[in-house]
């Protein structure tokens, strides 16, 4: 056992490494608030420093700043999530066509690898901002708030009523990252299967609207809508559901009214 070392706060712990007689300052003694008081249970030569830093806090700060910027411009934002290929971009094409000339829409396009989705949304009079991969949390699996902050700078918010953020196709982590949106919605499509709310409850629970897309495929699938709705209700009671086909346009109207609502 080495010598004991007394901190200003009265705690004591042992040093193995000093055989010199000394009074010395630990760097952390200037910041004693960060210390766990009792070092006595410790092997010598090490010290535990309490940190308590929420790793998502920075994302949440950016999200709050994004929301403040949107609010200041009077713009409402919807974060649209889904698994890959559920039909987000197809639904957005329908949505932009329906809102053209009525609501000024900006799109934050989360297809960060290719310009393909952004090209499909061209020609409806909407402002479109592409994302770049940052070195924060975000990337190929979800958008984070710093990425969306950069994308929002590519939009003239003063000239918009609504921003729709097409998130990365993924049922896991996009649900965990606030990006500054006012409302979250997701697209689910029939071929994905009735069990998905139970397998991805964090996602299905995070939204206020679930679009059930590709209903035009119902005749070809053995999709049990009742079972799906029960599974969904089990993870997100009272959630709003719009059954529609982004391909045929059937049922899209109710979604469009919701997304443009409050404007």
């Amino acid at each position, binding site marked *: 056992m080495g010598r004991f070392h007394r901190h200003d706060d009265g705690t004591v712990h042992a*040093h193995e490494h000093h055989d010199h007689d000394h009074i010395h300052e630990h760097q952390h003694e200037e910041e004693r608030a960060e210390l766990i008081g009792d070092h006595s249970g410790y092997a010598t030569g090490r010290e535990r*420093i309490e940190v308590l830093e929420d790793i998502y806090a920075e994302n949440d700060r950016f999200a709050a700043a994004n929301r403040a910027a949107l609010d200041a411009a009077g713009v409402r934002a919807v974060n649209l999530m889904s698994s890959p290929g559920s039909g987000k971009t197809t639904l957005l094409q329908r949505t932009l066509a329906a809102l053209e000339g009525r609501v000024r829409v900006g799109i934050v396009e989360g297809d960060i690898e290719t310009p393909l989705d952004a090209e499909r949304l061209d020609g409806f009079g909407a402002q479109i901002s592409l994302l770049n991969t940052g070195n924060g949390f975000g990337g190929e699996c979800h958008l984070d708030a710093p990425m969306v902050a950069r994308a929002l700078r590519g939009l003239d918010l003063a000239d918009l009523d609504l921003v729709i953020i097409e998130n990365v196709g993924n049922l896991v982590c996009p649900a965990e990252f606030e990006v500054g949106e006012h409302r979250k919605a997701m697209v689910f499509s029939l071929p994905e299967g009735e069990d998905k709310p139970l397998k991805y409850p964090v996602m299905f629970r995070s939204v206020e609207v679930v679009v059930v897309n590709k209903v035009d495929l119902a005749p070809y699938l053995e999709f049990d809508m009742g079972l799906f709705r029960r599974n969904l209700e089990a993870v997100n009671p009272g959630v709003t559901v719009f059954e529609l086909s982004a391909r045929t346009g059937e049922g899209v109207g109710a979604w469009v009214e919701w997304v443009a609502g409050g404007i």
Partner: protein
Amino acid sequence: MHEVSLSLQLAAAVSRAARGRQVRVVYVAIGALRQVVPEALEHAWVFTVRGTPLGAAELDLDLLPAVLTCDECGADTKLGPELGFGCAACGSAATRVVSGEQFTLTAIDIDIEKGTCDGTFPPT
């Protein structure tokens, strides 16, 4: 899923807290709703810190369950791996998450040979 980006964020937070001191252990509390795969995080961490001043730092993960509280009967339910959101006591779906969203750097263990003596005394 994004364990590499989480590792990078974590390493940045650890570096800030360490202020140049040698870090040996990094304690992280992770709630189940963060959907982190511990093995993937460990792997990403090794890869993230290799060749950096944090190269000797190991992760110590405290995996916390998600806990729901029931608005109908008041019971708490610990979520299993399937993460259903119903109350285990009464079956009600009217539950609220009260724990499980943590991703917190709780503490670090540092060597006190390094940096603690401010260079005033030669290390023995």
